[in-house]
């Protein structure tokens, strides 16, 4: 029955992507298409006192310059601007709404012209005068004292402060994670096609077409049928496309103002005015007995947010899942700064928080003179301590064992600076990763044609994660058809419901919706087949009928079969359509997580401080892997992100001006091909019969978690220097 699920099937959208046929948001054509170019604020806080567009408007080919004082109407209540991923607390940013400036790089005007070059040129002619507010702040460390605690899900257990103070061996430290930007390769873009009579087709770079659809209807007071949102291909997102981006509002404003199709593509620099991983100070406290059992864990995160929304994720609390301790306390604090609101970025919360926790565990292991794996096994937790729940599955011990074996851990000399290869110091270390296994309601429609082809459709996006492919695999198996006969349609707001693609929940969620819809198809086909004249399936219970090889057959007795085509012709059906919304049964009896053990080898040039990550082994336990090829790629991508987080990525702010200094993809460093060496991904066998029917958990985030810590710990092992301020650059090593 499983010809495709669990195999290394190549991406079904591969051909479109390697031939250039795949179209992204900024690439859809429209008659008389206009181009918008954004003008940004150059101060972090204040008011627009003067906005002179007269020179821009004189340029031949410019049709209009939209500003807060000159634009179509926008909704006036916060509720209209709150998309499904918006923070609960605060007032969402409204582009071109009023004269207020809330962050440097905020859009304040849109020049609309017949072509892009003209719009870009004319944008340089817009003159802006500000009433600046001198009292602005963008520096987390300088403003740390103003941090305010926000509500956190984890209750304190025991007396963490007292136990920590009394511990025989104690480690306490701050770890600093800088602001980071997603930098997907595709520029943030929207093409709004004016369909006439105020109806709009919106091609948008988003992870959730229905989220954007509802948002646009609310913001512009439109009826659901007036707007259709599509994102058939998304050139990377990593969380940046969860909330509607401001260019979708600007492009829609332009289309409504000029009653023509409008495209707005942000520049790479302008993309830094949207969401980011918030800079965070992670304070860890670990107390242990000399044998390596923990007495206390404290974790306090202090993160930045904007002045208009409180964005907070679970940086802390992961020790509840990983390490047994009778006492624990977690807190999350926010510092409101004059920056745009942070957003989810690959493994939000965990990427930063677990990085600090796993560096701290390594420091504790050194203090205890214990092998870092041995320390983790000593306090291994078989339950989620915060709720005292067992796991649906947790093969983390096997991750440690398999990873250590593949890495060659037993050949490690534990002494720092003891391993060397020529002029390079060699460091070997490891860290643990953990993420949630989430699942959401998703609906899928299957239309089966009498010729044995099926169209499977859902509003979910494929942001490079492989959703097209796994949906096709699951449908092909469930319908008993070759994968070539499955046509998957995604990312259209008119298709059956799906949440935003994020949190690693889409694989499990979409796969089970496919199973549910296919189950309805199977039942109906079984009924049809059993009523055919002299049917080989006459009298066979529908529950014993399976779909296999294009036939409807008795389970275990393939000779008793009717072809799908014959059965549908018998029923005079050209097409059989079933749509099903899958809800997962609510079950709070178990904790649901994915886990990993990450091993890193670094080589550090002793004189120059240059760090190379020459080997990573990531052993992942994430339930059943639907596609070992695309799944491996997802983990590998997460590892590359972890290398970037450890060594490269940092959004640098000039706090005197509240302005980002490296808003481009040359000075904001991300890993290039030469930075990446051997990455070994191991999927540890984890059969989870509890979590869902297929035993699927999701892979989007777990790949990055733990990687930065494994590298930081390996840098310590190589050099004897503990760098707690990320990214670990050579200047910090040589200081």
């Amino acid at each position, binding site marked *: 029955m499983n010809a495709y699920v669990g195999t290394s099937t*190549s991406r079904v959208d*591969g*051909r*479109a*992507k*390697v*031939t*250039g046929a*795949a*179209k*992204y948001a*900024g*690439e859809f*054509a429209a008659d008389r298409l206009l181009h918008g170019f954004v003008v940004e604020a150059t101060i972090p806080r204040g008011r627009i006192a003067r906005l002179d567009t007269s*020179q*821009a408007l*004189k*340029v*031949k080919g410019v049709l209009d310059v939209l500003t807060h004082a000159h634009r179509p109407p926008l909704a006036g209540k916060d509720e209209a601007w709150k998309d499904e991923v918006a923070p609960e607390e605060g007032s969402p940013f409204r582009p071109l709404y009023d004269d207020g400036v809330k962050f440097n790089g905020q859009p304040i005007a849109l020049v609309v012209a017949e*072509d*892009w*070059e*003209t719009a870009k*040129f*004319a944008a340089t*002619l817009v003159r802006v005068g500000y009433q600046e507010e001198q009292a602005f702040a963008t520096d987390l460390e300088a403003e740390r004292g103003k941090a305010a605690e926000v509500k956190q899900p984890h209750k304190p257990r025991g007396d963490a402060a007292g136990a920590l103070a009394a511990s025989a061996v104690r480690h306490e430290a701050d770890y600093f994670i800088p602001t980071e930007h*997603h*930098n*997907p*390769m*595709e*520029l943030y873009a929207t093409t709004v096609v004016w369909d006439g009579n105020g109806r709009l087709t919106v091609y948008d770079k988003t992870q959730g077409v229905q989220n954007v659809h509802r948002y646009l209807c609310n913001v512009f007071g439109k009826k659901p049928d007036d707007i259709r949102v599509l994102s058939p*291909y*998304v*050139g*990377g*997102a990593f969380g940046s496309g969860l909330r509607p981006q401001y260019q979708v509002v600007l492009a829609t404003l332009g289309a409504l103002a000029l009653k023509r199709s409008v495209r707005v*593509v942000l*520049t*790479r620099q302008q993309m830094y005015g949207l969401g980011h991983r918030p800079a965070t100070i992670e304070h860890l406290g670990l107390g242990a007995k000399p044998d390596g059992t923990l007495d206390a864990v404290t974790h306090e995160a202090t993160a930045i947010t904007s002045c208009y929304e409180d964005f907070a994720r679970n940086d802390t609390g992961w020790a509840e899942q990983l390490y047994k301790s009778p006492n624990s306390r977690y807190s999350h604090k926010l510092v409101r700064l004059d920056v745009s609101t942070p957003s989810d970025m690959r493994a939000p919360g965990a990427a930063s928080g677990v990085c600090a926790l796993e560096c701290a565990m390594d420091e504790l292991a050194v203090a205890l003179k214990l092998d870092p794996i041995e320390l983790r096994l000593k306090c291994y937790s078989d339950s989620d301590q915060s709720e005292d729940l067992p796991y649906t599955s947790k093969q983390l011990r096997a991750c440690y064992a398999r990873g250590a074996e593949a890495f060659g851990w037993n050949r490690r000399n534990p002494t720092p600076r003891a391993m060397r290869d020529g002029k390079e110091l060699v460091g070997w270390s490891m860290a643990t990763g953990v993420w949630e296994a989430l699942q959401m309601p998703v609906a899928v429609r299957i239309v089966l044609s009498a010729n044995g082809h099926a169209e499977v459709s859902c509003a979910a996006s494929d942001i*490079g*994660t492989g959703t097209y492919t796994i949906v096709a695999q699951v449908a092909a198996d469930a319908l008993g058809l070759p994968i070539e006969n499955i046509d998957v349609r995604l990312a259209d707001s008119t298709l059956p419901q799906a949440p935003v693609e994020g949190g690693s929940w889409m694989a499990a969620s979409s796969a089970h919706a496919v199973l549910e819809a296919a189950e309805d198809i199977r039942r109906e086909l079984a009924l049809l087949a059993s009523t055919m004249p002299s049917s080989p399936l006459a009298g066979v219970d529908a529950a014993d009928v399976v779909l296999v090889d294009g036939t409807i057959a008795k389970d275990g007795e393939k000779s008793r079969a009717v072809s799908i085509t014959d059965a549908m012709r018998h029923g005079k059906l050209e097409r059989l359509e079933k749509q099903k919304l899958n809800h997962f049964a609510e079950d709070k009896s178990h904790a649901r997580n994915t886990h990993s053990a990450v091993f890193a080898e670094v080589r550090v040039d002793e004189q120059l401080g240059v760090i190379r990550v020459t080997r990573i082994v990531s052993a992942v336990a994430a339930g059943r892997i639907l596609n070992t090829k*695309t799944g*491996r*790629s*997802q983990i*590998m*991508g997460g*590892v*590359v*992100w972890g290398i970037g987080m450890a060594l490269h990525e940092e959004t640098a702010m000039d706090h005197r001006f509240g302005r980002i200094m490296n808003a*481009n*993809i*040359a000075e904001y460093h*991300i890993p*290039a*091909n*030469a930075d*990446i060496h051997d*990455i070994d991904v191991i999927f540890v066998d984890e059969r989870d019969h509890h979590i869902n029917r297929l035993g699927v958990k999701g892979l989007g985030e777990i790949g990055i978690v733990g990687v930065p810590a494994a590298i930081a710990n390996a840098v310590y092992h190589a050099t004897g220097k503990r760098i707690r301020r990320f990214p670990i650059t050579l200047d910090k090593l040589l200081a």
Partner: protein
Amino acid sequence: MADAANQIPDRIPINLIVNGNRRTLDLVPWTTLLDALREHLALTGTKKGCDHGQCGACTVLVDGRRVNSCLTLAVMKDGAEITTIEGLARDGALHPLQQAFIDHDAFQCGYCTPGQICSATGLLAEGRAKDSDEIRELMSGNLCRCGAYPNIIAAIQQAMGRP
């Protein structure tokens, strides 16, 4: 200032041989080869990722050499032969690099992929890369945020006929 506002330069006629077809364009001189392909010839397979020569997504072959089309003004290439991702497959048969990229899952979102494949085509023609270290180095002008680098190396090695 009033003068600046009206200074749109005159258009210049140029010829490009794009994927074997002769194309005539009237372009203002500031139009990049990238925008000429995407906006004027509707060849959107060539991608814009930074417009500053930092990411390599816009890589095309100009007279057989790989270049960043965002850093190339179209008028500078009058008469040149341009090969884009749309021109690599012949009669529906994928170029060996295109097939290798699918086989090795050398992409996820697909946005950097046309640039990677055009760059790899240029790399193979250069004949400089002998092993994976050299391929890594010589492919580092093409960023991939999905992190498919090891698979990109494997795909290029397959196309080179090396294990």
